[in-house]
């Protein structure tokens, strides 16, 4: 703003002061109050980590929003021209300092986001599907649970309990779960919204996602990838229950499962249904 003349007020200074004041007020408020209210919530380690990720991002974005709000509010009111005749503004064509400042600032923000996002991702996988060979693996023992999507429902298999297959999802509390998501027909997506886990179910693909559960609760499961006619109805409810209750539930399911087990294919990472066999 080297061309500011003596007769004009120092517009740049006004904007910068207003921006700094507004950002100083808004950023802590957003970080403290808006950030933690972000979904998906603290029902799992992955969900909690997404909330902290969202909080950081929205806190960094707040000063940027403040800058644009202040700039436009100032520019659109102060530089408004009324009256019929056309008056030209000062022919400012460039200012290298502003260009460099803007580029450096946006590059810093971008690199921060990318670095921070990568760091958060590698902590525990953030609940996203990572394909057959995951890179972000939480430590400790894990309970494998297979999610089999088909048009238009999810079924679940527990390989550690003899390939037990159920139509309801029960998970033990305070456990690390290793989901293996696959599909029998179209592409689906296994989305347990409150837990912050989403993994696409592709036919012929074993898509692994990790979840560290916390206390007991119920949660909703949606299909999040358009999979045909009844996609909108492909939802159900899942349960996180205490360890003892989970063991009891498994026992009961195994009894129900025993007579039908021989009709099912053995547990595998993926399944290839016979394409010639048409559903009834």
């Amino acid at each position, binding site marked *: 703003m080297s061309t500011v003349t003596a007769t*004009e007020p120092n517009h740049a200074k006004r904007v910068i002061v207003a921006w700094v004041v507004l950002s100083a007020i808004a950023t802590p408020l957003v970080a403290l109050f808006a950030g933690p209210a972000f*979904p998906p919530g603290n029902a799992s380690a992955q969900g909690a980590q*997404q909330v902290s990720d969202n909080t950081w*991002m929205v806190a960094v*974005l707040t000063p940027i*929003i403040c800058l644009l709000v202040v*700039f*436009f509010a100032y*520019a*659109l009111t102060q*530089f*408004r*021209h009324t009256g019929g005749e*056309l*008056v*030209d*503004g*000062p*022919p*400012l*064509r*460039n*200012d290298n300092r502003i260009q460099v400042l*803007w*580029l450096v600032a*946006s*590059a810093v923000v*971008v690199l921060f*986001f*990318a670095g921070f*996002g*990568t760091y*958060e*991702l590698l902590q525990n996988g953030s*609940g*996203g*599907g990572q*394909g057959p060979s*995951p*890179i972000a693996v939480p430590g400790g023992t894990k309970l494998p649970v297979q999610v089999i999507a088909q048009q238009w429902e999810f079924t679940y298999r527990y390989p550690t309990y003899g390939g037990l297959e159920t139509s309801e999802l029960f998970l033990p509390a305070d456990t690390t779960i290793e989901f293996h998501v696959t599909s029998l027909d*179209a*592409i689906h*997506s296994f*989305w347990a*919204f409150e837990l*912050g886990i*989403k993994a*696409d179910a592709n*036919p*012929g693909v074993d*898509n692994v*996602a990790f979840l560290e559960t916390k206390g007991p609760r119920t949660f*909703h499961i949606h299909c*999040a*990838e*358009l999979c045909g*006619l009844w*996609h*909108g*109805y492909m939802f159900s409810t899942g349960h996180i229950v205490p360890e003892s209750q989970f063991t009891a539930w498994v026992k009961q399911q195994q009894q129900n499962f025993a007579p039908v087990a021989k009709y099912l294919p053995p547990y595998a990472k993926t399944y290839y249904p016979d394409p010639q066999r048409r559903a009834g």
Partner: protein
Amino acid sequence: MSTIAVAQRPPVWRRLVGFNLLTGCLLGIGGWYVGWFAAHGIVGPSIAYFADVDYNELSVFMAYTCGVLGFLIGLGFFNYPFARLRGYPPSLRVKEGEGVGRYFGLCTDHKVVGIQYLVGIGFFFFIGGLNAMLIRIELLRPDHQVWPAGTYLTIVGVHGTMMMGMFTSGLLGPFGNYFVPILIGARRMAFPRIEALTFWLLMAGGVILETTIFFGGFPTGWTGYAPLNVQSNPGMDCYILFFALVGISMTLLGLNMIATIVTMRAPGLTWTRLPIFVWGVLTTSVLMVLAAPVLIATLAMAMLDRTAQTSFFVAAGGGSAYLYQNLFWVFGHPEVYILALPGFAIVLEILPVFARKPLWGYRLAVAGLLGVTLLSFFVWQHHLFVSGINADLRPFYMLSTELISIPTGITFICGMMTLWRGRIRYSVPMLFCLAWFFNFLIGGLSGVFLSDVPSDVTTHGSFFSMAHFHYTVMGGLVFTFFAAIYYWLPKMTGLELNERLGKIHFWTMFISFNSTFGPLFAVGFLGQPRRVVTYPHNLQFLNVWVSVSAFVLGLSLLLFLYNFVRSLVFVRVPAPTDPWGSKSIEWQLPSPVPVHNFDRIPVFSTDPYGYGETPTSVAVPAGAPAGRD
């Protein structure tokens, strides 16, 4: 001259016989039946599987292919090649003259094609908008109520496909075709027949997509993911043919634009004097030429999967559903920048006129456009963050996606610094450009959440991403589309649009647009997946709010239509040559622009943004001797 021409006009019936839209439609329908029965003759009787149904996939594809060929024959696209084969001399121009008839057929005048595009795309935009209203009617209540589930998905799919397909040419078609030759001081496009072909292919595609309802619609949305598209109704074939025709049209349009801009600039119009809009068209054309062929190839594979029982995308047959997703988004992500980039350029083109200042940081702005062009080819797998494909590459795609906000930010700083200390007038085009900053800021910042893998796990595939891309595409492209209409229509038609109605249109559209798509971020964050026919009851209030806002948004667009028809048909106030006081060359020509644009090719000595500078004008008016400054 014109009175003599009127006296010698043949009767109406005689004028309807010939190569025009009517003949094109008749031959198109005829060709459709020829293809349909020919394909039945080939496969229908011979394969038992097809024998008990009335159609087969091949007959649908052949019917439409022959229909399009008949349509093009009827329009006269094959006359010239045959004339050349029979030894007639080469000619660049077809049906360039006066009269309404030239709008209903093959015309090589780039200004006629521009107006054809405006009306044609406007028509399909209207249909796509009606589909959006039908979607919002269904979502007024959480339970499944108005449309059968299949019909609902078809409506969703046609809305998305129509908008994404048609609006790839939404700014380049009308305004690129009309103004690029004028802005670079040329009298025509490099390939005038190709230019007309791109338009008529797009129109044929639009009709084909609409006819999907006769074949059971398609359930895949605009992405058309395999293997769902392999098991779908024959309506899926209409989707494939539509997008393939759009792809061909895009490729040709892009090649034509690149050839025109590179080879046909007037003397003195160096790369640094080019209007920024032309730069926007050039970079978009590069995206079109490189991205659209991937789409055509992908759809060809999908077509083979459906007709010849190949299994490119069927896992049980050895294919991979990932392949389709990968290829589709290799096209699909540049495609969303095909939608956004001309919007950037129009904002930067219009801001200097209404801020009365030169475009700030011209070279930086061009670098921004080029940066978006380059980076947009390296980000596509952010659509597949949770799909399980290439999990170890996710940090790279997170970085490349976030890097693209640097060139986008360049557009912001150039626009903002152009406003700085300007003499801003709030005419309707300026209001739409300013709204772009607001919309694209929200669209861009919500994109940060989608580009960040941990956050994307929740937002991906939810209404959040849907709100995000409506902010960038509708807020970024449709708003600049209207800015361009209000800005350039006086030049294209020689008539003024009503300013007062325009302002009412702007404010109702701006407010209802934000009231529609703003709450959808919350709806997505609260767990509503995209493209669902039913949703949790606790989200009903937000959904009803969104639906009502969407209806107001629809009404505001009807208000524009009213203004458009009223100003151009009934009131007809002649527009002055340069109503905005712009220094760009198109405003130095008479309105509407004469058929051959310039009597002499102009010579340029500066860029068109010399507000507050001397010498003031660079443009040479029509009829002026070449070289006058």
